[in-house]
Each structure stands twice: as structure tokens, then as C-alpha cells.
């Protein structure tokens, strides 16, 4: 299959304008005749559903939570980037584009990233107009802060709750369209199958999580905005319900999965405290603006932090990367923390942590200023650990946070399955091999507010055939979904779903985590196959399908993670280079920096499903750089 990203021709800065002009329009009166399904109500899904509703389309909006407002975008803390250059510090659309491509270690599409940078400014305007309570300067203008991977201050924020405020903005726009009758909400629904008719996406099959009923919904196009797959690792900063099921089910129906091995490990999370742990909590990267990362110089130094004198501390990020210091990109910061702990210099009870110290910032700016900037984060840290970060340094350690891989999409955000659009974290498009901080919110909202509302029209014009749920394809998909549920309930084994999930997560963390090598990946792959086999023989799922059954919900998700894990490992093996978050130990410079192989791997790796446990077919989309020159990333 030839993978064509359908990137418009012409100069970089004119591509999006030109493409928008060339896309065919739909007469306003005809828009209401088109029904569109949107799965997921995070930033991408809610903003898409609201904007498409405003345009007059007839929208069906689905989410697994009890309310669309609870999607996991709400937990994003630090901020959202935009190239406003309000600080007069040399920012521009081109600089945001450049930083994002570089931060992604040259594994993203130039045209997509440039469009993202262009749109970033409209997003801020839109969110302000909705009433987003962004931080302000005394004069009333919008405030900014710095984030990792950039030397300009371009991040807009609302305390440590930026994701919450942006999501509530998108949610309220969505609810306004519900009131207007253009959006119908389907909360507590989980997508179990994508329905294809004549090769086009025409609907979905969902399970009503309250009644257990399997329902079919038909539409002219389907948008997936269902987030990432970080929970494959069991422990991650994702919400408990985040899962790969919607995208995996679409993959099984023919949608290509791109770059599944690109998983971002966030450097500043609260360390694991015990085997009961159900999730990991992120401490916003913005803390690295004022906090200094250090470990003791000597391995095995178990003194409490206040007893370690200044000259026996190693501020290793400042030492190794004097230019960017504590603000190096996430992948660099995470690996450096792992290195420090591998050298026996980790701190805290598990020795799998490093310090993030605010002592100097408090001395410089006063406790009140620090409280204003990070008050809620400090409070959260204290609630979880029982320690006061105003007095003693925070302990942090990397954790799985975000997945850059996702379903393959073209410039219009449409997958290789006609009529299936994929937005936000669920697609692969903009972050390459590593996402910079404060860019996820930007991408989710760009996709939903400002890209798909245009591009989906271009598809709908050319596809006028209607499908309803009486089509046999829906019955077949319902049967498939119900059959799978019956199989899960019938196993009646001796291990719980969480027990399997934890085991899978450990295998992935050890074999396909912060650092990978061929032997470890091979071993992990064999182990995953064993665990998957045991799962279908020995899992226990209580209750029945016809009721609220949380064990059953989790079982379905874990079953899909088990299948997906094989693809993730396969991709990590195939990509025989280091780039961004994908660190293959075989490929590093003398001082431990990742070594890319642009000659052989400057491409998107998109996989076609051939069956569980069967090697997928690889399709390559070459990445062409016309506006930036590929270089060894350096933050020194």
C-alpha cells in the first residue's frame, strides 16, 4: 500500500491556506443532513463536536465517563503553547514549528507541525473568548511561562489547571450545541467495534456501560478522539479508564497504526510507593522553571537532603546541559534521572527517585511567589507523600505519560480508512518521537477546533451515500463484540484482570520502557505472548454483561492492551536507531545521547494488522525535510 500523506504543494507557510481554499464546501443547508460520530470528549473530541455542531452538522458524541467534562485532558497541568510572541523574546510561528520538529527529533511531518504552529494563536484567542481564566500580568495582559525544549516564554496557563480550564471551555461549547439540538450526548458508552461499509467508516458499535446493552450507531463519518495507549504499562499518569480499545478495534478493521513504540516517559512524577499503586501522579513540568534537579554526588549516600552540603550535590542537568539546564526536553530529563539512579545515586526509600528542590527559588522569590505559581501542585504532592515541598525537596521519578504514536492519518487527519478521522493523542501526526511540554493541549484543540471542521467537509462532499444501522455490517459487528464479551465471561479462571494488567505493565516497562535493546525486546515479546495466552485461559471476570460491570470493562481493555503490546514491541525492534523517546541502547553517542539513523529510519512506520501474534505488514511514509536541516539535537 502506498502511504500518501496528501500534503499540499507550495511553500510551507502557504500550504494550509491553499488547501483550505481547495477543499470543497458543503452548503449550510446540506450540513444538517450529514451525521458525524465523535468518540471521546477530551480537548480534541469536545472541540470537534462543538465546532462541527456550530457549523450545522448533526453530531453524535460518545464518552466512557459519566460526563463529557471528565475526559483525561482535564488533568493536564502546565499550559498550552502559542506563537504569540507577547513577551517580545523572539518567538514566531516558525520558531514554534522549528522547536516542535527538533523536540520531536525529526520524526514528524513538517507540513502538519507548521500548521499546528500557525493555528496555535487562534486557539488562545478562542479559549480567552470562552472565558478561560488564564493567568494575567498586572496590566491585564496574558502571562506566559517557559517550558522544556524552548528558550522563549510562550506557554499560557491557568495556575496548574490549564487542561481543566481548556476542557471546561470545550465542554461548555459542546453543551451549548446540545442545547441547540445539534449534538446528542451518549455518556457511559464504550466503543467496541468500528463498522465499515464498502470499505468506508460508517458507524460504531458501543456497549452501554449502565445497561450492558450493545448498541449500533450509523453516520457518514467517524471521528476517533480517544486518547493514547499509555495504560498498556498499567502504571502511568493516565486516568484509569484510558485505553487503546477504540483505536485498536479500528486497527483490526484496517486502519494503520503508526509509530507505536513512541511512548513519552515524563520526568517529573511522584515515585512509586508500593505494589498497591494504581496510578502515578504527574508533577507539572513547569516546576522545572524554578526547581533544581539533583542527586548526591556519591552513590549510596543515604543522608537526608538537608544534611547533604552544597558541594556534595550533583545538579546533573545543569552540569550536563548548561544551555538548557533544568529545562531540557522530557526524554533527556527522564533518561538522565534513570542514569543517576542506575549509578546508585537515587534517593528516597526505593532509591528510584531524584530531588526537585525549590530551596533556591524560595530564597530568591519568597515563599508567597512560589505558592502563587505552584500552590496546588505543592498541595497535591503533600497530600500524596505526606511531605512538605516548601521545607524538603520533592522526590520525583519518570513515568509513562503520553504516546506520540497512534493511528496513521493524512494531512486532513483522515486515516487510510475513508471516513475515519483521528484527532489528538489518538493520532500520530505532530510530535514525532518526543512531544514538548504544553504541546498536547495545543494539538488536541488545533485538530478539533480548527482542522477537522474544514477537512471533514471535503470528505463528505465526495461521499453522499447513506447508511443506517439495519445494514448487515452492523449486525455482524454487534455479534463480534458480544461474542468477545461472552468469551471473557466464560473463562472463569483464577487471576484477576488487574493482576494480568500489572504483569503486562511490568514486562513493557522493563523491556520496552525508557531504554530498549534487541535482546530485551525479544524477551518481552515472548513473555507478552505467554501472558496473553494465559489471560484467555485463566482470567476471572465476575458478573454478567447485562449490568454495570467494571471488571468486564477492564477485562476488554486489558485484552486489547495484550494484543497491542506485541505491536509496540515489534515497532521498537524494527526501529533500529535511537530517536527522541525511543532509546535503543545499541545506538548512543559516547556521552549517552541518542543516535539517529536518518539514512534508514527517517520515516513514519505504519503497520497493517494481519492477525493476533502474526507479524504486521510495515508501510513506510518517508519524511521529507525541506525547511529545517536534520541535526543532532543538542541542549548543551
Amino acid at each position, binding site marked *: 500500500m502506498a502511504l500518501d500523506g496528501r500534503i499540499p504543494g507550495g511553500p510551507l507557510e502557504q500550504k494550509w491556506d491553499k488547501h483550505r481554499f481547495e477543499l470543497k464546501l458543503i452548503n449550510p443547508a446540506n450540513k444538517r443532513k450529514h451525521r458525524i460520530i465523535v468518540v471521546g470528549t477530551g480537548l480534541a473530541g469536545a*472541540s470537534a463536536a462543538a465546532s462541527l455542531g*456550530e457549523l450545522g452538522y448533526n453530531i453524535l458524541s460518545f464518552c466512557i465517563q*459519566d*460526563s463529557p*467534562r*471528565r*475526559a*483525561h485532558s482535564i488533568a493536564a497541568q502546565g499550559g498550552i503553547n502559542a506563537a*504569540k510572541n507577547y513577551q517580545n523574546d523572539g518567538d514566531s510561528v516558525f520558531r514554534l514549528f522549528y522547536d516542535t520538529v527538533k523536540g520531536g527529533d525529526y520524526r514528524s511531518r513538517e507540513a502538519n507541525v507548521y500548521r499546528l504552529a500557525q493555528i496555535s494563536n*487562534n486557539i*488562545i*484567542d*478562542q479559549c*480567552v*473568548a*470562552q*472565558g478561560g*481564566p488564564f493567568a*494575567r500580568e*498586572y496590566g*491585564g*495582559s*496574558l502571562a506566559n511561562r517557559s517550558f522544556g525544549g524552548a528558550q522563549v516564554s510562550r506557554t*499560557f496557563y491557568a*495556575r496548574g*489547571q490549564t487542561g*481543566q*480550564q481548556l476542557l471546561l471551555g470545550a*465542554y*461548555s*461549547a459542546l*453543551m*451549548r450545541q*446540545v*442545547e441547540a439540538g445539534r449534538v446528542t450526548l451518549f*455518556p457511559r458508552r464504550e466503543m467496541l467495534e468500528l463498522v465499515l461499509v464498502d470499505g468506508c467508516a460508517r458507524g460504531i458499535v458501543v456497549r452501554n456501560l449502565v445497561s450492558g446493552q450493545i448498541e449500533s450507531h450509523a453516520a457518514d463519518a467517524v471521528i476517533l478522539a480517544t486518547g493514547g495507549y499509555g495504560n498498556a504499562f498499567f502504571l502511568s499518569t493516565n*486516568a*484509569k479508564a484510558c485505553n487503546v480499545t477504540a483505536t485498536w478495534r479500528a486497527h483490526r478493521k484496517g486502519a494503520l497504526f503508526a509509530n507505536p513504540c513512541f511512548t513519552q516517559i515524563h520526568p517529573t512524577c511522584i515515585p512509586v*510507593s*508500593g505494589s*498497591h*499503586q*494504581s496510578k502515578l*501522579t504527574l508533577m507539572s513540568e513547569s516546576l522545572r522553571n524554578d526547581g533544581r534537579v539533583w542527586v548526591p554526588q556519591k552513590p549510596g549516600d543515604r543522608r537526608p537532603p538537608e544534611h547533604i552540603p552544597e558541594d556534595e550535590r550533583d545538579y546533573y542537568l545543569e552540569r550536563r546541559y548548561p544551555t538548557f539546564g533544568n529545562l531540557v526536553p522530557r526524554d533527556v530529563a527522564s533518561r538522565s534521572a534513570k542514569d543517576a539512579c542506575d549509578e546508585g545515586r537515587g534517593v528516597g526509600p526505593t532509591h528510584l527517585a531524584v530531588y526537585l528542590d525549590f530551596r533556591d527559588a524560595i530564597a530568591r522569590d519568597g515563599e508567597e511567589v512560589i505558592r502563587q505559581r505552584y500552590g496546588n501542585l505543592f*498541595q*497535591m504532592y503533600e*497530600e*500524596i507523600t*505526606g511531605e512538605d515541598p516548601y521545607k524538603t525537596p520533592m522526590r520525583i521519578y519518570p513515568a509513562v505519560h503520553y504516546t506520540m504514536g497512534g493511528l496513521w492519518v493524512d494531512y486532513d487527519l483522515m486515516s487510510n480508512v475513508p471516513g475515519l478521522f483521528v484527532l489528538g493523542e489518538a493520532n500520530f501526526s505532530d510530535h514525532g518521537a518526543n512531544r514538548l511540554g504544553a504541546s498536547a493541549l495545543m494539538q488536541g484543540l488545533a485538530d478539533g*477546533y*480548527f482542522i477537522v*471542521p474544514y477537512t471533514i467537509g471535503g470528505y463528505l462532499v465526495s461521499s453522499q451515500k447513506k447508511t443506517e444501522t439495519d445494514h448487515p455490517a452492523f449486525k455482524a459487528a454487534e455479534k463480534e463484540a458480544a461474542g468477545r464479551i461472552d468469551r471473557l465471561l466464560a473463562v472463569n479462571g483464577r487471576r*484477576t*484482570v*488487574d493482576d494480568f494488567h500489572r504483569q503486562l505493565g511490568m514486562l513493557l516497562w522493563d523491556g520496552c520502557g525508557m531504554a530498549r535493546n534487541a535482546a530485551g525486546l525479544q524477551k518481552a515479546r515472548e513473555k507478552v505472548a505467554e501472558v496473553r495466552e494465559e489471560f484467555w485461559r485463566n482470567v*476471572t471476570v*465476575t458478573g454478567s454483561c447485562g*449490568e*454495570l460491570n467494571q*471488571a468486564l470493562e477492564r477485562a476488554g481493555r486489558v485484552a486489547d492492551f495484550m494484543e497491542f503490546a506485541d505491536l509496540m514491541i515489534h515497532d521498537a525492534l524494527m526501529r533500529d536507531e535511537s530517536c527522541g523517546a525511543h532509546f535503543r541502547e545499541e545506538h548512543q553517542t559516547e556521552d549517552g545521547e541518542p543516535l539517529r539513523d536518518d539514512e534508514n529510519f527517517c520515516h513514519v512506520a505504519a503497520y497493517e494488522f494481519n492477525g493476533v501474534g502474526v507479524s504486521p505488514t510495515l508501510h513506510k511514509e518517508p519524511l521529507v525535510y525541506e525547511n529545517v536541516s536534520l541535526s543532532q539535537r543538542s541542549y548543551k
Partner: protein
Amino acid sequence: MSEGMGLTLRVWRQKNARDRGKLVTYRATYISPDMSFLEMLDVVNEGLALKGEDPIAFDSDCREGICGACGLVINGVAHGPGKGTTTCQLYMRSFKDGDTISIEPWRAAAFPVVKDLVVDRSAFDRITQAGGYISVNTGSAPDGNAILISQETAEEAMDAAACIGCGACVASCKNASAMLFVAAKVKHLGILPQGQPERRRRVLAMLEAAQAEGFGDCSNEYECEAVCPKQISVSHIAFLNREYLKSTLKK
């Protein structure tokens, strides 16, 4: 304490919306003080599942205090003994070995029980739907800095906007009133310049929707503020009342 705590739990079990429901006693053992309250319930549920019993259903998602999905009445208090915390951010170090803990769902006519500790809070969505927004279509916004907002106003708006929609305010109120929830949104949007054009309409529409959903009136008990995980102040309700009065007069 290496073996952890042993606790007696009295948990509300109710098969579905039509079932009467009852309190059932469970033992929780080997509980570490570093566990969150929900992780403690996870441990209990693992044990139930292995015995082939139906695990206790409860809502939770982000488990970091921001999504608003979780919410249990613990020993009679919404979100339990922690001040300014959600249930997921309550840690077992708040309890001691041998404690008996009662665990119940939010109780309010407008929040019917779905199963066990899971309730239906879609009434909050319908209140928002009635007018909890600024009507601005995508693409029609002026430059962000064209609207200057003093730092003070932005901070005050943020204080109110911090509401996570968990419903603890309703659960703690003897009238099951949603006034704190409504007031937080009315205040957030009502003091910002962007919110002025719909200021009057918004307060009337949201209050009317709240009443239609069966939430009660406010009788100034301040229980809502006491349990609010985001410590949203009842002073917003005073603001709401003034707004309501002005809006009715100008209607």
C-alpha cells in the same frame, strides 16, 4: 506496622437503580498507610473477585483530584475526613488500625444511584447545558490580549472556575442543593468581561434548570464549602443571590 492496618468496612451495596440496597460488612486487611482510599477499595475488590463475588462498583478516573469522577460519603462526610481533597486523594494514613469505616454513595433525589456507590450526576450537565457558557462560535474570537483583565479579576474567576463538578456540595447539603455548583459557574463567567452579554440570562437559566432537576434551595448551612475538594467559597452563593435578584428585576 509492616503488616498494615486491618479495617472493618460497612459498604452500601445496591444491584441497580430499582434495588433497595443495604449496608454490607467487609474486612480490609494489610492496608498500607501510603495507599489511597480507592486503592484500599481496589484491594478489597481483588479479594472479592477471587472469591467469585461481585466487586464494589464505584466511579473514579484520573485519581489525582481533578476529573471529579470519584465521590464517596465516608463516615457520613462527603469525600471523607481530608480537608480540600477528593476521595481519590484521601490516603489511608488518615485512618488507624481497627477502625470501622462506613462508605456510602452521594444521596440526593437528583443523583439517583446507578449501582452500589455509583450515582447518575447528569443533572449537572443539564444545568450547564441551560446556560453555563459564553456563546462564542469557533473562529469568531478577537486577539487574546484585546480583552484586558486585571490579575485580581482573573484570580477570582479562577477560584470559582476550579469547580470539578463532583457533586459533594449536593451530597453534603440537607436540602441537596446545587447552589455552590451553580454559583461557581455564575461567578466565574459573571465577573469576566467576556461573560457580560449573557450575564442576566445565564443566572436565570441555570437556576431554573437546577430547580427542574429537583435540587433544593440553599439555607446557609455552609456544609458545601466544608466538603468542597476545591474549597470553593460560599461567598459565591451570596454573589449568585444578588445576581438573581438583579436579573429578575431587569427581566
